[in-house]
């Protein structure tokens, strides 16, 4: 009897194993090209956080399907942290399921170099090239070619506490970094706030974003020359790192910034513990939400002096797509002025004309006014195929300079010396 039960158990285990094996092998085949009844099925990959919500993307997609009955779109959402790996593994090692993918502004060089996204330069509609902010467009560009339809628009803004500035006798937010330092010194010496500035300077991509933003306003965010030789150890980028170190050493920048990401900067700002902070669009809504913010109505938003880092994302068509034209059609639809103006709660449009429509800006005119200038002056992070490795090295260099382990010049020189190795990986 006992052995009978055991046999049955073994049998069950084997059946379970076979079912498991069958399940795991069946999923790739379902990702093939559906062509039942002449309709095309597109597979699109998006991210789950920031920007347009899942529901908004679903609504846009339904509208697209209604307008194009022969095209169906299957959408998939992953966390931002998983997006890059998912695209690369799908296209390089995997079965090439996705037709179109959301591409961060720092990836076009890498993807184009590896040939996993299609060149869209000659296929983009003319109204895009003329109607979209030029600097938003650059987010999908590499060496003069366009690999993405710009879609999700974002940049770093300068958030400031109006009440604190008024207490120190300033009526306007700073428009240059030198002015910001002057105002910060006054705020500190008058004892209005202990650390006037807070940055997202933790060892992460955000540290590179802040550095790029400050470089944009310190002589220009130029990282490589025309021959591809590193220039980020001189000019604007060097001046930016020197300014960051100076601000930290003078007690103008919060020393805790070295461990802060975007959410930390937001929390410090909305707790009323900083007069200035660089952060992304979403902070404006949080600052005016009574449930989260202690300083409702006090936080102002201004374009970062000299231009903020481009944090936008674009839609790319993959190498593996068998329906490249349909995929591009879908991307162009998502990024169309009509769609972008319909969903402005989580992302602002990338179309210049949208900012001349006061009815759109009704809810938060200050944000729209700042964005109109900011989107025109966005600066890009380095555009190189080995960006991830370069960024990791830069993150460490920025931290070494900020902690005083190295001078800004030596820290950036060190990364510049690593460039040939990083490039040949």
């Amino acid at each position, binding site marked *: 009897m006992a052995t009978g039960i055991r046999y049955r158990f073994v049998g069950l285990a084997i059946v379970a194993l076979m079912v498991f094996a069958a399940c795991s092998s069946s999923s790739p085949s379902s990702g093939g090209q559906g062509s039942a009844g002449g309709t095309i099925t597109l597979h699109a990959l998006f991210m789950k956080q920031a920007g347009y919500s899942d529901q908004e993307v679903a609504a846009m997609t339904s509208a697209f399907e209604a307008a194009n009955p022969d095209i169906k779109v299957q959408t998939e959402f992953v966390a931002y942290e998983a997006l890059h790996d998912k695209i690369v593994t799908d296209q390089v090692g995997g079965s090439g399921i996705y037709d179109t993918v959301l591409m961060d502004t720092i990836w076009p060089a890498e993807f184009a170099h590896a040939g996993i996204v299609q060149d869209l330069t000659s296929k983009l509609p003319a109204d895009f090239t003329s109607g979209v902010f030029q600097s938003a467009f650059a987010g999908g560009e590499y060496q003069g070619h366009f690999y993405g339809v710009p879609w999700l628009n974002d940049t770093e803004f300068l958030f400031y506490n109006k009440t604190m500035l008024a207490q120190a006798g300033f009526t306007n937010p700073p428009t240059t970094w030198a002015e910001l330092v002057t105002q910060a010194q006054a705020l500190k010496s008058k004892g209005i706030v202990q650390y006037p500035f807070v940055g997202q300077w933790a060892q*992460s991509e955000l540290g590179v974003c802040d550095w790029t933003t400050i470089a944009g306003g310190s002589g220009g965010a130029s990282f490589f020359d025309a021959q591809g030789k590193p220039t980020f150890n001189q000019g604007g980028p060097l001046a930016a790192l020197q300014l960051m170190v100076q601000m930290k050493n003078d007690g103008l920048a919060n020393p805790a910034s070295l461990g802060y990401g975007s959410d930390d900067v937001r*929390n410090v700002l909305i707790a009323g513990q900083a007069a200035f902070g660089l952060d992304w669009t979403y902070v404006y809504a949080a600052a005016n939400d009574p449930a989260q913010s202690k300083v409702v109505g006090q936080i102002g938003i201004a374009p970062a002096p000299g231009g903020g880092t481009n944090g936008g994302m674009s839609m790319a068509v993959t190498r593996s797509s068998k329906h490249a034209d349909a995929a591009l059609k879908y991307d162009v639809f998502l990024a169309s002025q009509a769609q972008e103006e319909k969903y402005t709660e989580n992302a602002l449009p990338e179309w210049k004309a949208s900012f001349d429509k006061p009815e759109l800006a009704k809810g938060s005119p200050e944000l729209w006014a700042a964005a109109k200038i900011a989107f025109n002056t966005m600066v890009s992070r380095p555009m190189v195929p080995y960006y991830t490795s370069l960024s990791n090295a830069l993150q460490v260099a920025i931290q070494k300079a900020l*902690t005083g382990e190295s001078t800004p010049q030596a820290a950036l020189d060190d990364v510049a010396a690593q460039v040939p190795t990083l490039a040949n990986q």
Partner: protein
Amino acid sequence: MQLFARRQLRLTGRWPKGEKWLAGAMIAPAALVIFLVAAVPLVGVLWMSLFHHVLINPNNQPFVGVQNYITQLTSQGFWAAAERSLLFTVASTGIELILGLGLALLMNQPLRLRWILRGLVILPWALPGVSNALMWRWIDQAQYGALNALLTQTGIASSYINWLGDPHIAIYMVVLADVYKNTPLVALLLLAALQTVPKEPIEAARVDGAGSFQCFRYITLAWIKPVILIALVLRTMDAFKVFDTIWIMTRGGPANSTQTIAIYAYQTAYESFNFGGGAALGYLIALLIVGLAAIYIRLLRGGPVT
């Protein structure tokens, strides 16, 4: 049948013939799974580590022999990360052992409400690693964290301390988070061992004039030494490959000061997509852990209960 089989197994050390194939069939599914998920990748990774394999560059993946290993062993980053791993391991395992022993001794006392104490002690161990790390990231937050609030409000510190932003402090803060989470495991292991310590030798020693400390040092500690070693082995290996706590709390920063070897390997393999280098690192880490294990096994063998 079963009884007979068990007796024969005990006497001869072998399964009786009839049961042999059944035993094989019973372990076959598990063995197959282990083969597929452990043995196959192990060989695959070894093979991968011999190539210049950068995922994003699929057309240039030549065979390079042991070049990936040489590159890693001669790189500053690898040795700096190994050093940080060693520091993390020694600090966290050492503190966990001392605190764990103290807690175990306390829990072993015939106190009233001992069950509450035992329940409380096990709580941190029940936390998922990621939750624990997130909790400590909040506690250590410089401006609105609980630790700075406690220290400034009690007057111990006059200004906020930048726990996770200072490269000289951050590593100890991740050690602290690890200690909080894993001390209960050590305490429970040692408590179990303490409960097996016989009373007679202690009574005999007391009659012979031994003090409390001598009883503890020469009887209790000697008795639980094998379990201490087991706790050490478990914690050392775990601490050496720590990832989640650090990744959530600092991502290896500031200025790489908490970049342990597992973080270094992850960044090589999955951020730079250098799979060849990552695979070589995986093997180097495994070798280091095997080395540690060998030392411990020798210690365990050389220390029988007397």
